[in-house]
């Protein structure tokens, strides 16, 4: 490509995105507008905004999507501007930088140009050395090597040259950091377009399906650990992964400790007393007419079938509702709330192995529904032992790993950018009579104070006259 030729994409727009002013503008704008979303509570119900800010301001909030600001188009537009800015700047700056890093050594030695470079350096020294050229060279070399510089030597007529450098990789720190930001952004985008989140209430002993996957998860146990003072220490669930009918993995999860299986994570996120299942119930047999109890109540487990003593029937515990409600349309029972306001159990009644009835027993209202079809006896619910459920969040986010990869690259980038400095030093040694004049100067991309001290150390290392240079 001939120099001076205009490259097709290098138009005004390109230079707009290449400008550092844009970077500063977008960064400061982002910082300022981000405040809004921390002051206005996000993702609340519409009436809340009207009540708090009044109808006019609520309308502004709605129009600008300030109720979900960080997903609003104008906010994403700002992020997109920053992204384009980063991409264009990297394209513009990286290739020449890379070239200069590869070809940084002077190709030939010319004492005059070396001296000129040295004199133009912001940091330069001139030290007298009493001794020959080669002795001076050894002295300078050891001083530079002590500071871990890489050195190339040049021989000239009557004088010697050296070029030393270190920390060139520090130059790439900003590029690593910029690429890491793009990676993190990419991860966030991947996460928002693929992957899913879900939340499952699992009763102890129950197995639930995992969306988009063949395997299921069973909750074996839920329990709470306490401190001696009575404060809650931790919520725990024992989860088992069931695949093709076989238990493949059992793991105890707690807050901060998810279960991971085939790309899906399971998090402990809530718990409570189940409103749709119990461990066991106490069933009393009573005289239907008088309501008098006949014998001790029977304890029946969930899904267990037991004979009803003194009758031809058997019963099976199949349903529970903490707050019994009946859907008028579908004629089905359900729980109106999670609290045991109106506990009821459902029994299936069998005669000679054939189901003859579904019975509903209410703890608070014994005898309102007849349980046994033809008998002078009836059943009442005398009590029950509930079970816990565990609320488990499911999360599959393939973008997460990209975000972590980006974070690692960012760490490397920061290390290079802030703690590795690119230093270049030019040395010129000329001999006159029995002594030498050692001139050297250098540049550093950052941290001048450090470099000043380093070059002074080198000067002191070379100087053998006893006087300060």
């Amino acid at each position, binding site marked *: 490509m001939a120099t001076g030729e205009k490259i097709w994409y290098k138009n005004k727009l390109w230079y707009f995105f290449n400008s550092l002013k844009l970077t500063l503008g977008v960064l400061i704008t982002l*910082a300022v507008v981000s405040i809004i979303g921390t002051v206005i*509570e996000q993702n609340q119900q519409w009436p809340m905004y009207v009540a708090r800010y009044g109808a006019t301001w609520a309308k502004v909030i709605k129009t600008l999507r300030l109720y979900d600001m*960080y997903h609003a188009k104008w906010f994403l537009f700002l992020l997109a501007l920053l992204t384009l800015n980063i991409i264009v700047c990297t394209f513009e700056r990286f290739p020449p930088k890379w070239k200069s890093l590869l070809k940084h050594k002077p190709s030939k030695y010319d004492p005059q140009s070396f001296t000129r470079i040295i004199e133009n350096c912001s940091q330069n020294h001139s030290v007298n050395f009493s001794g020959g050229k080669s002795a001076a060279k050894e002295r300078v070399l050891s001083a530079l090597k002590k500071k871990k510089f890489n050195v190339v030597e040049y021989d000239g007529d009557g004088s010697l040259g050296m070029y030393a450098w270190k920390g060139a990789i520090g130059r790439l720190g900003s590029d690593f950091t910029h690429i890491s930001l793009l990676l993190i952004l990419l991860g966030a985008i991947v996460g928002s377009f693929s992957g899913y989140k879900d939340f499952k209430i699992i009763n102890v002993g129950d197995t639930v399906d995992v969306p988009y996957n063949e395997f299921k998860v069973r909750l074996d146990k839920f329990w709470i650990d306490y401190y001696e003072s009575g404060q809650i*220490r931790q*919520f725990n669930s024992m989860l088992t992964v069931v695949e093709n009918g076989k238990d493949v993995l059992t793991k105890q999860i707690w807050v901060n400790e998810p279960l991971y299986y085939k790309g899906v*994570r399971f998090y402990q996120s809530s718990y409570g007393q189940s409103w749709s299942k119990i461990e066991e119930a106490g069933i009393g047999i009573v005289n239907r007419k008088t309501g008098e109890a006949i014998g001790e109540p029977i304890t029946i487990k969930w899904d267990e079938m037991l004979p009803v003593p003194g009758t031809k029937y058997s019963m099976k515990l199949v349903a529970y509702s903490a707050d019994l409600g009946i859907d008028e349309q579908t004629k089905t029972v359900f729980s109106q709330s999670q609290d045991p306001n109106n506990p009821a159990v459902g029994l299936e009644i069998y005669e000679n192995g054939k189901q003859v009835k579904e019975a509903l027993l209410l703890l608070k209202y014994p005898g309102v529904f007849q349980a046994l079809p033809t008998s002078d006896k009836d059943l009442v619910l005398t009590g029950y032992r509930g079970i816990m459920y565990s609320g488990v969040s499911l999360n599959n986010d393939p973008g997460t790993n990209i975000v972590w990869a980006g974070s690692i690259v960012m760490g490397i980038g*920061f290390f290079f950018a802030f703690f590795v400095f690119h230093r270049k030093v030019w040395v010129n040694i000329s001999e006159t009579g029995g002594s030498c004049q050692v001139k050297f100067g250098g540049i550093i991309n950052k941290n*001048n104070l450090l470099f000043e001290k380093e070059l002074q150390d080198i000067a002191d290392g070379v100087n053998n006259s006893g006087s300060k240079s």
Partner: protein
Amino acid sequence: MILSLLFFTFSFVFYLLTALLYVGNWVFKKKWLGQTATAMSIVALFSTTMILIVRAKESGHAPFSNLYESMMLFVWAVNVGYIAMEYKYKFKVMGVFVMAFEFLAMLSASLLPYKFKSAEPLNPALQNKWHWMVDLLSKIGYEKYAIGWLDFHVFTTFIGYAGFAISCGLSIMFLLKNRAEEKGGNNFLLDAFPESKILDELSYRTIAWGFPFLAVGIVSGAVWANYAWGTYWSWDPKETWSLITWFIYAAYLHARVTRGWRGKKAAYLSVAGFAAVIFLYWGVSFILPGLHAYA
């Protein structure tokens, strides 16, 4: 509780003394005052370290779980940063501002309401230990000293805060010195400041420490949130403010690339950045609701 209070009281007095000694050194320019001030800052550091250690013993976990404990960590980190800087660059005038700031921080910590101070056992969401570390330490029976994302997250974040605090002080010194230099003439107190060019450079160097540490703090917080809640970012006010702070310092670092933004404008950005840090640290905890309500 008693022992950590004792060390708190000691530190409180030590920071006051240290600040006064640095002021004395600044005004009277006596070498022995400067040396005593430096020695005193080390004594104060030791005492602050003891607060943290004793506190950890009392609560049974790393002392990073409420506002008071994090304040002690902050004071500690600023002191470490300052001593390292004084050792490296030998400017004692900074000590006046840093130690006065430390004293104010101790004062505000002592004024915190009780609920932000008491040593509590960790709630479920804060319990996190690295498995590999527990496994490693359990071989020698020290598994209770294992740390986790909470400790790492808080520690790195506060190193960042400390860097920004020192940088803010340096930027204010820069602005004062710069004005004096522009006006010319002599000023008995400002003449003791290093050149404005050096103050500008040092302010940049401290931000160059703070910025990556804040980034590591944010990222480790994200990793931990992903373990605890299943999302690495949820635009919680604390998260958002940490990002705001990060944006401001990112602007600062980019501003320095262009000449025109060095010096004054950069110094103003640094001060603005630290104002954001203060809000991020205290404002969010007290004013805005969110996941970080405990600290």
